[in-house]
């Protein structure tokens, strides 16, 4: 694959490109899902190809070819250059300088998740589902996934980076319908379970079977729970929902391509301006957010990104003040700070974009129970159910699968259909406590969308439960 990438880069330079990079990818992905104790899907998908990105006379071009052959590499390079020539370009385009990289990165693992027999994966799902059964539950499901990707990046400024990464994950859901509406409970997370860049030992450690009874009992209990009231109150939010809160209200708005408007036609822009760096009050002094592409088991962990910039750990928010952006070489050059490091492409047939890698809420101190103990009247919210945020990432509304009333520092009655809403900097400004490192958990998000044509990204967020004062819960009308 390295030779093919080198061929593509040489062909692009010969065709007039001032810069070129080529990525060859071979990916294999397995999914098993059972539903109501029937096998819903057993799939084994592979995809391979080469993508070539070029700069010609200041204009970007990108083309790809499914054939991992010399002809495929050359033709992709030629078409990328032709598209760049045909496209209107800006006057001048600088890329932040980087030192050429030579790297070979392999995910640390004990069991290669793709090599785990499909029978074992089916068996795990069926066993987990058996443990979910209750008469009042009308849908149960279990799923596991495994992925292996080999990728080579060659750039015209001398970088050669090879990756062999594996991911895997799994989860269970129980759904119940009745007078209390349609209720769902999930473990370890909503939306197809929890994934990590790790070997199959990660899935084994989830203990899907052991957690099934609690999950299914809570789904049934929600049918007769009281609805979450509409009021302004204090909230404690569990670590999983905090992961999505960080993702949507900190991760996306700090992507510098959005800030410069290049995502305006789809995912949107940002309430942040380039000049806000170092001065914008994002939240309270308890808010510390770090981007870290070196996190062990992170879905966004790599040695070098998809334009050859080294993985880094750097602050995004420090004690509530904006301290950094997620950048590419191009956007870093525009702002005159850093060298990028967040460029990632979905696969061989998509251009790299500025994406989150692993974005964490740094832990504070104490436990979730201590956060709850500090609330006289409020709501404890757990596990994401719905999510929406405006195009500048200001007005958000999240729903959670389950909630509990807090009275005098203790959990009370269960509540269903809980939502909370806010305006990003106001909400983060009301943060008055983050639980400590012992409650800090790494969550994987595998459905992050951006770009046209659309691209999915897999990212991780380490978070602890957190407490916010004076938040609107329930739907205001």
């Amino acid at each position, binding site marked *: 694959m390295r030779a093919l990438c080198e061929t593509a880069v040489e062909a692009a330079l010969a065709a007039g490109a001032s810069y070129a990079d080529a990525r060859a990818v071979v990916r294999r992905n397995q999914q098993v899902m059972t539903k109501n104790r029937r096998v819903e899907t057993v799939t084994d998908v*592979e995809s391979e190809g080469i993508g070539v990105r070029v700069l010609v006379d200041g204009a970007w071009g990108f083309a790809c070819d499914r054939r991992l052959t010399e002809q495929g590499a050359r033709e992709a390079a030629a078409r990328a250059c032709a598209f760049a020539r045909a496209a209107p370009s*800006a006057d001048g385009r600088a890329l932040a300088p980087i030192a050429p990289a030579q790297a070979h990165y392999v995910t640390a693992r004990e069991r290669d998740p793709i090599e785990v027999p499909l029978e074992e994966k089916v068996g795990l799902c069926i066993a987990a589902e058996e443990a979910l059964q209750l008469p009042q539950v009308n849908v149960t499901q279990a799923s596991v996934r495994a992925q292996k990707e080999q990728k080579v990046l060659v750039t015209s400024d001398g970088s050669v980076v090879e990756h062999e990464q594996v991911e895997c994950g799994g989860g269970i859901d129980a759904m119940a319908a009745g007078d209390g509406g349609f209720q769902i409970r999930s473990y370890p997370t909503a939306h197809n379970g929890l994934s990590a860049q790790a070997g199959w030992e990660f899935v084994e450690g989830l203990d899907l079977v052991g957690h099934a009874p609690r999950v299914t009992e809570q789904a049934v209990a929600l049918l007769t729970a009281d609805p979450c009231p509409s009021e302004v109150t204090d909230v404690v939010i569990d670590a999983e929902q905090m992961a999505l809160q960080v993702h949507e209200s900190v991760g996306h708005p700090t992507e510098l391509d959005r800030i410069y408007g290049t995502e305006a036609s789809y995912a949107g822009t940002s309430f942040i301006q380039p000049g806000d760096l170092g001065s914008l009050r994002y939240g309270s002094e308890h808010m510390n957010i770090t981007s870290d592409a070196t996190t062990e088991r992170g879905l966004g962990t790599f040695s070098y990104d998809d334009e050859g910039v080294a993985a880094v750990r750097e602050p995004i928010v420090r004690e509530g003040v904006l301290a950094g952006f997620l950048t590419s070489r191009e956007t870093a050059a525009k702002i005159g700070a850093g060298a990028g490091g967040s460029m990632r492409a979905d696969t061989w047939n998509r251009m790299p974009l500025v994406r989150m890698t692993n974005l964490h809420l740094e832990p504070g101190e104490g436990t979730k129970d201590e956060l709850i103990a500090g609330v006289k009247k409020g709501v404890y919210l757990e596990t994401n*159910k719905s999510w929406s945020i405006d195009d500048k990432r200001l007005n958000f509304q999240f729903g959670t699968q389950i909630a509990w009333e807090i009275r005098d520092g203790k959990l009370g009655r269960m509540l269903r259909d809980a939502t909370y809403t806010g305006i990003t900097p106001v909400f983060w400004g009301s943060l008055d406590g983050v639980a400590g490192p012992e409650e800090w958990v790494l969550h994987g998000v595998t459905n992050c969308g951006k770009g046209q044509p659309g691209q999915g990204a897999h990212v991780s967020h380490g978070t602890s439960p957190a407490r916010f004062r004076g938040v609107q819960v329930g739907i205001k009308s």
Partner: protein
Amino acid sequence: MSALPVAQDAIDAAAGDEAEAVVLTERSGLARFAGREVHQPTLIDNVVVTLRVVRDGKVGIAATNRVEPDGLRELARRAGQAADSSVATPGFPGLAPPADPPDVQGWDEETAALGPDEQAHRAAAAIAATTTGVYGFFTSGETELAIASTAGVRTSQSMTDATTIVVAADRGCSGYAEASSWRARSLDPAAVAREAAEKASRTNGAAAADPARYRAVLEPYAIGTLLEYFGFDSFGAQALLEERSYFSGRIGQRAFDEKVTIVDDALDPRGLPKAFDFEGMPKQRVPLVEDGVIRGVVWDRATAARASNGAHSTGHAPPASLLAHGPFPAALQMTGGDAESIEELAELVGDGIYVTRLHYLSVVDPREGVITGMTRDGTFRIRGGKVAEPLVNLRFTVSVPELLADVPGLTRDLTLVNGSDFYGERYPFGALVPALATASFNVTGSGSRPGL
């Protein structure tokens, strides 16, 4: 590359097994622009073969884009291994029998021939049409879907599609427009840009609105997106069987204004026509709501067999990647009304809110059809029957059945609203819908100002 021979080769590679091959080819270009330049131009050329193998009632699926003999042999091996690893599915209806798909339009030679130069020039036309910055894309592509199986299915369809979307935006103002067709020549990217820019010019100085239930006019862009999200859970058989659908227990009941009729019709040449689904079953026009009465949902053979109530496939089997979701409509169509223009709808509303498009929708409660999201790129107050001053982007949390329960009017003309964000393999779809006036649009908060 012709898809049907590849499908046949895949079946041959699985010799000895009951097997079905689905081949989807794509050759497309997308020129994405921002401000005054194309910044993300993407050319894609790909073939994906999905092979479903059945052994002793056990089903396994594998896919590849390596379509040479060794790739297909390996594909057959992995699909067989997946089947061996599975357990027999009770009530599995087997592979689909051969059927004659209907003749449909949906392929245009000129559109199929568009290359990167033409795609880039159409993007440039949108950029040049206005002095306001424009953010969007022009894309065109040719796809072919072919299916072959050991049950005797041999069918294929070539399709073309083209879409332009434009957000015209500057500091504090933005407007939106789009156009889609299977004939690229019927798209005018410059006109789309001018429509977006005109809308943007009226959004400066936007104000907040109090949370309340408003009368409202929703443009087709908003209605198309809202129906798509409502349809994910409510218009498909699997959601009905799992009691997740708003239609669960309500079929035959009047639930909406009698002016509301919704069908799924992939055969209509005004949309993006499809002849058959992902197991080769012919597409049917399916009434979902007629004159406000809930009539049914869309089915594939698996859900029909599971229901055991006389239901049959309506030609809505999903691709393998969406099997867990079950069948869903991808050619929604809402019948138009009597209004000759959107301005007439504003007169019917009197005082309320005007919504151009929606952003980042999420289903809050599938069974009650509750959806939240934001308005975007052209939200206005309606005063005295006229579109008036601009509003900031508004958060709404609506029960779609409530929104459709009292509909003062709909436009006569329908607009094809693109439904694809072009994730994964290209399979264009959209909704053919009018603009609509409603007596109930529940605003629950205010968000960002329009524009950059």
